């Protein structure tokens, strides 16, 4: 693109526009209300970019391009349409892998005699990152779709091998930049990057794959960016670096949500230990009050089940406020009061009356249990024994046969308590390990306070 054809100008301004569209898209994507629109926008941007780019093409290769686009489009579309919702993470991984591969190829094909060593470097980078993104994503896919054991695969001396690889990558890099004509370096670079991608991911446990994917996604962004430098295309740079940056952030956010550090996740040894840990604990799924808010915001029917913990936390006032906010938000809120909740008969009544919760909202156990199946979210506030499914399920349990509030029948259950400790009866509670249960750890008053602050 040395001399400026008017055509090129148009194209580039179109690029500016589509870059803007990507940005807007991402912005909107970060709020539930506008997310879908955002996705459309960025898709639009993409379309625009592709179309104008095609304007630039000589008819000769056009048919090949057409072939590529059609094949790819069909595959992508069908896959995207047919796959079950549950396997979407795998899909994302797979797509991401293709993206990486694409960058690899672009970089590769961008090689031309007499390029500045800067250009060569970027080319090399795009190949490298592209390659490892490719295989890395494939492994991630395999692990998620259980085509391959989800548990971390470790072999002794892994670290060493990795370091060796990294060194040799650098080596190849240097050589390649010095003498681009020598394809050997190129091929070995490709080979190594591909291998490295595999080795980087296998030692990470299936549970951590989402994080990995998000990271690889950010890489593929960087790959695109590098490719952009290679072919001197601003849009690639902008879009690529956007994805790169946001990907990193997103990865960090995800780590925070599962309170892990990124290094925890990546560095095999640790990653492995950690994951097995969680296995032992069964699947306890913690949730931050902030995230809890987003689920509550979308819920239309909510049941609050208070217990002794609400009393200890003196959370009745915030509970009342939460109830009001939820109602303003259009949800229907009821309280399910178990006869023995608390430490004295009517303990919950005293507190809720103090907080001025209308009597009409208080439902007895026998009235609320039947409708539990239609409850979107059951919020268990410092209750334990009185919502313990063991009373139904575990013949042996000391409380077997005692009627409890069947929160586990609700679509989602939030349990607000400080720890995994047991309640008055001193027995474990299988509820905490159910699929639809999310544990919100911390003093109930604190946690609810934080949820409330999300409303605004």
């Amino acid at each position, binding site marked *: 693109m040395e001399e400026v054809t008017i055509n090129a100008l148009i194209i580039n301004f179109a690029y500016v526009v589509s870059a803007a569209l*990507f940005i807007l898209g*991402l912005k909107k994507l*970060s709020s*539930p209300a506008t*997310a*879908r629109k955002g996705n459309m926008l960025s*898709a639009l941007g*993409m379309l625009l970019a592709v179309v104008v780019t095609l304007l*630039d093409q000589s008819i000769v*290769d056009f048919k*090949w*391009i057409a*072939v*590529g*686009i059609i*094949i*790819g489009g069909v*595959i*992508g*579309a069908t*896959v*995207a*349409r047919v796959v079950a*919702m549950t396997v*979407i993470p795998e*899909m*994302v991984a797979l*797509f991401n892998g*293709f993206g990486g591969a*694409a*960058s690899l*190829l*672009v970089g590769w*094909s*961008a090689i*031309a005699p007499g390029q500045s060593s800067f250009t060569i470097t970027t080319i090399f980078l795009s190949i490298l990152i592209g390659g490892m993104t490719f295989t890395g994503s494939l492994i991630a896919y395999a692990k998620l779709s259980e085509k391959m054991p989800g548990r971390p695969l470790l072999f002794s001396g892994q670290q060493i091998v990795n370091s060796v690889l990294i060194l040799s990558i650098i080596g190849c890099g240097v050589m390649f930049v010095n003498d681009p004509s020598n394809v050997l370096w190129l091929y070995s670079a490709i080979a190594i990057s591909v291998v490295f991608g595999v080795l980087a991911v296998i030692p990470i446990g299936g549970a951590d794959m989402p994080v990995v994917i*998000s990271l690889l*996604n950010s890489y*593929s*962004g960087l790959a*695109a960016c590098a*490719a*952009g*430098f*290679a*072919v001197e295309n601003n849009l*690639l*740079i*902008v*879009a690529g670096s*956007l*994805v790169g*940056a*946001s990907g*990193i*952030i997103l990865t960090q*956010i995800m780590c925070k*949500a599962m309170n892990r550090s990124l290094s925890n996740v990546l560095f095999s040894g640790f990653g492995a230990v950690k994951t097995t840990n969680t296995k032992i604990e069964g699947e306890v799924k913690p949730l*931050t009050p902030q995230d809890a808010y987003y689920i509550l915001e979308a819920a*239309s029917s909510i049941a609050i089940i208070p217990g002794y913990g609400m009393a200890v936390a003196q959370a009745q006032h915030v509970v009342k406020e939460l109830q009001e906010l939820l109602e303003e938000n259009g949800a229907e809120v009821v309280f399910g009061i178990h006869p023995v909740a608390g430490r004295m008969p009517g303990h919950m009544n005293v507190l809720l009356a103090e907080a001025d919760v209308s009597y009409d909202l208080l439902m007895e156990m026998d009235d609320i249990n039947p409708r539990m199946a239609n409850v979107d979210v059951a919020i268990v506030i410092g209750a334990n024994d009185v919502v313990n499914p063991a009373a139904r399920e575990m013949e042996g349990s000391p409380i077997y046969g005692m009627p409890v509030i069947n929160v586990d029948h609700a679509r989602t259950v939030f349990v607000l308590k400080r720890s995994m400790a047991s309640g008055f009866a001193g027995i474990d509670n299988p509820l905490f390990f159910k699929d639809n249960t999310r544990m919100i750890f911390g003093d109930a008053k604190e946690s609810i306070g934080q949820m409330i602050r999300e409303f605004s």
Partner: protein
Amino acid sequence: MEIVFLTFILVLSIFLGFELINKVPATLHTPLMSASNAISGITLVGALAIAGSTSDPVMANWLAVGAVTLATINVVGGYMVTDRMLAMFKKKAGK
């Protein structure tokens, strides 16, 4: 000089990227990921560009066409999957 501009652009977009994704609800992590993944399919454009202007047609074409195919999968698939996810999300939030 270009390289200067390019770096400018790089730096700015990185900052922008950070700013944009500052705090997203966990509910949106996956959609967001797959959306930005779709964006990273922008290499498609690079591939197209190459596929046209390259010194070694035959070889490059094959690579480029490969690139185009893969990138397109990434782009099309990515956006559609994202949309599907968000669609159900919307439904819930909708009421």
